[in-house]
């Protein structure tokens, strides 16, 4: 039993690291260069701008870019991860070994998280360097915003894996992107539904509110830039919300994946 446990952990770890290696060797992290170039360009343009606004704009742009580049990676890598293994049949020798299908999915998921962590760390390093150049200090508020960006990306990656466990990359890409966009609007839609007067619209928007991830909960960018007070309870509950959402989505993915025949 103990040996089985260890083998399981070792397998998940191996699959995660292999996924990360794939991202690195297939040059996924090259988009970091775009991030760096973009940030440099923004800061060069800002040299012409008025003092005072400058720090704010650097922060706005930096956080938005970290978020956007992260989302792109989470979706692009997430939707192809599982599909590629099936399509290229690299999964065949793997599943004939003592690896549970749930472990496979979990390993894949950890691999993409690892990729996202490294990506975010590198972008943040560059970002903080720029902020430090402009402001001469370290703004810890930004760190909280970035942490929450990571939580958002983790949710999106789980959604991408879920879709890719049963559909093609193009379709899963569209689905995941829709979830990303609508996920930022659910509470807005709920308010809209409540004030629309139509019972059907109200129920539908409520349904979306509870089923789709409420991604706006992870958006603390304005709080960070304007140093608005952040309630610690809200922060912790938001993280817990993200974790639970990820677990649910991954379990659905496991359900879809568990009984699947491979070509």
């Amino acid at each position, binding site marked *: 039993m103990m040996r089985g446990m260890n083998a399981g952990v070792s397998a998940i770890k191996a699959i995660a690291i292999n996924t990360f290696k794939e991202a690195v060797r297939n040059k996924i992290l090259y988009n970091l260069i775009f991030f760096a170039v973009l940030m440099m360009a923004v800061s060069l343009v800002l040299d012409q701008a008025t003092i005072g606004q400058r720090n704010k*704009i650097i922060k*706005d742009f930096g956080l938005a870019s970290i978020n956007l580049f992260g989302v792109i990676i989470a979706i692009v890598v997430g939707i192809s991860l599982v599909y590629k293994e099936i399509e290229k049949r690299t999964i065949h020798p793997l599943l004939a070994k003592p690896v*549970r299908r*749930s472990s496979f999915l979990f390993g894949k998921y950890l691999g993409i998280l690892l990729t996202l962590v490294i990506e975010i760390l590198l972008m943040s390093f560059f970002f903080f360097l720029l902020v430090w150049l402009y402001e001469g200090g370290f703004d810890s508020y930004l760190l909280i915003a970035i942490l929450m960006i990571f939580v958002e990306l983790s949710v999106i990656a789980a959604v991408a894996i879920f879709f890719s466990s049963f559909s093609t990359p193009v379709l899963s890409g569209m689905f995941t992107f829709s979830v990303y966009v609508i996920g930022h*609007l659910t*509470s*807005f839609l709920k*308010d*809209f539904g409540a*004030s629309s007067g139509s019972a059907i619209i109200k129920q539908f928007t409520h349904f979306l*509110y*509870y089923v789709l991830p*409420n991604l*706006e*909960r992870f958006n603390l960018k*304005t*709080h960070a830039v*304007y140093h*608005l007070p952040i*309630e610690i*309870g*809200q922060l912790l*509950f*938001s993280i*817990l*919300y993200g974790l*639970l*959402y990820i*677990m*649910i989505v991954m*379990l*659905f993915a*496991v*359900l879809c994946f*568990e009984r699947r025949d491979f070509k």
Partner: protein
Amino acid sequence: MKKRTVILLLILLSAALWGIQKKLDQYKSVEVESLLYLPSGEYLQPLSLGYQLMLSDMLWIKTITYFGSHFMGDGEYPWLYHILSLIIDLDPRFDFPYYFGGVVLSLEAAQAENANKILARGIEAYPEKWEYPFYIGFNHYYHRGDAARAAPYIERAAKLPGSPEFVKSLVGTLYMKVGADETALKFFREAHQNTSDALIKKKIEIKIEEILSRREQHDTGH
């Protein structure tokens, strides 16, 4: 994993997720307001990636819910002006926000200055509409009793097509208040000529009468 275990876990986790959603909803008032810390329209415009119209519609719906919740609640509207100006930055041809801003900001939120800024943008976008200058004039007069600043706007409104008769006579009334009797007289006479409404004609006649008698008094006083 066994299917039964997975489904059981799913049910438990979903219940927990629902509970947390509810819990987080209690923090909501902060969250809704924070949505309004949007950058100014100047930055939002390029960031909307070509979807300005849709974005402004969404912000408009947001405005209504924001207004509604505060109307029922504290009656304070600190973000109303900001969000309205975002909407018109994104979509200057969207006319309803001008009316809404011009009237609600002034009467309900007691922010006449901001109301007039919105209306001034309205005039830029729709110079042919008489309502916007009329509201500006109205705001000046109603809030401050400042007839001198109100008069030119009402005058402008009166000259635009579609403005009702009472606006023209209102111009006269305002100029009268300021003491510019000659100008007032000119407007009253014009209005008198143009209107076919007996009641208004009657009222204008009284006003003209008043100016004329005042002038006589003035003359004899000398």
